[in-house]
């Protein structure tokens, strides 16, 4: 995998309401440089929203997000998003472009690379996710697992310092999940700082340095996977784990 220059990430007391609906009610999360945090919890607990406040696709009402101790809330959000890669449940590849152009678009327009250099970076990135042969295919011609690996390559091509994964394998057929999780595990092992919202408890247990359990807009328990899975303290977490494991 690439050798990212990762940063540490701190989410501090983030609040967000959509009208009367308090989605985040003081969420906290700390991820060491190069570490992986898995965020687990029931549907509607605010996991995906929390992820979107980190790259400011959604602006928090209150609280702070820090990269290497520096608040990102005063940065230009577009510049911030080039530093924070994101992978979505539905891949969000651009269907009217080839796989290669999906990756080179941002390299050329935002990083201002020349055509040749952008193609070179894109091909190298595709190689890393095992899809070098699919550069000229359209996303619709790929399986879900392949599309998601292209989406990961697209995000990584911009050399982000943090990667966010929003239920990256939830939309995949079961037999395709492993390939995507493999790419994510490799990335974690290579020292990328990652926040992974997931229902894959096996992945959380195996790969995460920290597991954070969210419920009703708050991280109510966080710790090493062994501690969270083997000796959960909060009754809400115990109930959740008894249902998913």
């Amino acid at each position, binding site marked *: 995998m690439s050798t990212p220059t990762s940063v540490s990430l701190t989410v501090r007391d983030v609040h967000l309401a959509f009208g009367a609906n308090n989605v985040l009610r003081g969420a906290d999360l700390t991820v060491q440089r190069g570490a992986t945090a898995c965020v687990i919890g029931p549907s509607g607990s605010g996991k995906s929203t929390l992820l979107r406040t980190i790259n400011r696709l959604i602006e928090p009402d209150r609280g702070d997000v820090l990269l290497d101790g520096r608040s990102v809330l005063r940065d230009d959000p577009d510049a911030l998003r080039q530093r924070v890669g994101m992978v979505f449940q539905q891949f969000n590849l651009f269907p009217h472009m080839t796989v290669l152009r999906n990756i080179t678009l941002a390299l050329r327009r935002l990083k201002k690379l020349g055509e040749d250099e952008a193609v070179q970076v894109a091909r190298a990135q595709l190689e890393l996710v095992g899809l070098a042969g699919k550069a000229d295919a359209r996303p619709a011609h790929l399986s879900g697992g392949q599309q998601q690996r292209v989406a990961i390559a697209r995000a990584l091509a911009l050399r982000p310092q943090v990667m966010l994964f929003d239920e990256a394998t939830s939309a995949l057929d079961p037999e395709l999940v492993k390939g995507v999780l493999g790419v994510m595990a490799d990335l974690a092992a290579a020292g990328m700082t990652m926040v992974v919202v997931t229902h894959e*408890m096996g992945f959380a247990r195996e790969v995460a340095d920290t597991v954070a359990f969210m419920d009703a807009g708050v991280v109510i328990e966080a710790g090493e996977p062994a501690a969270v899975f083997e000796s959960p303290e909060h009754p809400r977490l115990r109930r959740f784990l008894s249902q998913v494991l």
Partner: protein
Amino acid sequence: MDPLRTLWETFFDWDAMREALPEMLTVGLPNTLILAVSAALLGSVLGMLLAVAGISRTRWLRWPARVYTDVFRGLPAAATILLIGVGLAPLGMQVWGPNPYPLGVLALSLIAAAYIGEIFRSGIQSVEAAQLEGARALGFSWSEAMRLVIIPQGVRRVLPAWVNQLIALIKDSSLVYFLGLLASQRELFRIGQDYAATTGNESALLLAGLCYLALTVPLTHAVNWIDRRLRQGRTVAVAPDDTEPDLVGETDLPTTARRDPR
């Protein structure tokens, strides 16, 4: 006289047609095409601006676009062409002299823009919000995301409706005859009508009609062809050799909770 024979001669007088044909092809056809194509270009550019203004979050863009569309879609094309062609004639006189042609193109463009704007807007709005989120997450600004990702997809989806609008435009171009064109500026319909008026025989007008059909019928089929291609393009089966390779992910992961219920 035999009424059927009269009817036949009124519409199918080959000599009258033969007489009108050269002028129809050398003057009428080029003028119709110039009117229709230039109005299509200008109308599409204006239509795109209207579409983007129509979905803007700024009320001061959205609102005027809405009013414009309502007005120009709601007026009869003939009324719009007369209002602009005659109403703006003094202004046109100062800019390009006594030529009514540019005002005719302008009027056709303004009408087409109202319809094309609605077509583009519906296309753009049909693109999933996730596409915008995906582009924004890469660091593209709203306008870059619209220009590079959303609009190209949206326009592609409504190409058939857009071509339909071009067909309407070709037919509407006949209405500029209201503006009193010079002999060399007459389009298909006007030439047919002039011959019909001087000879008292409708054959030349029928010939003009056939010329319109020669333009519009192929376009109608082009619409169907585009539509079919777009449909096929969207549902593509995954090739059977697309199995997930094991060369990535050296880490052997435990199976998921969902697949391994205990």
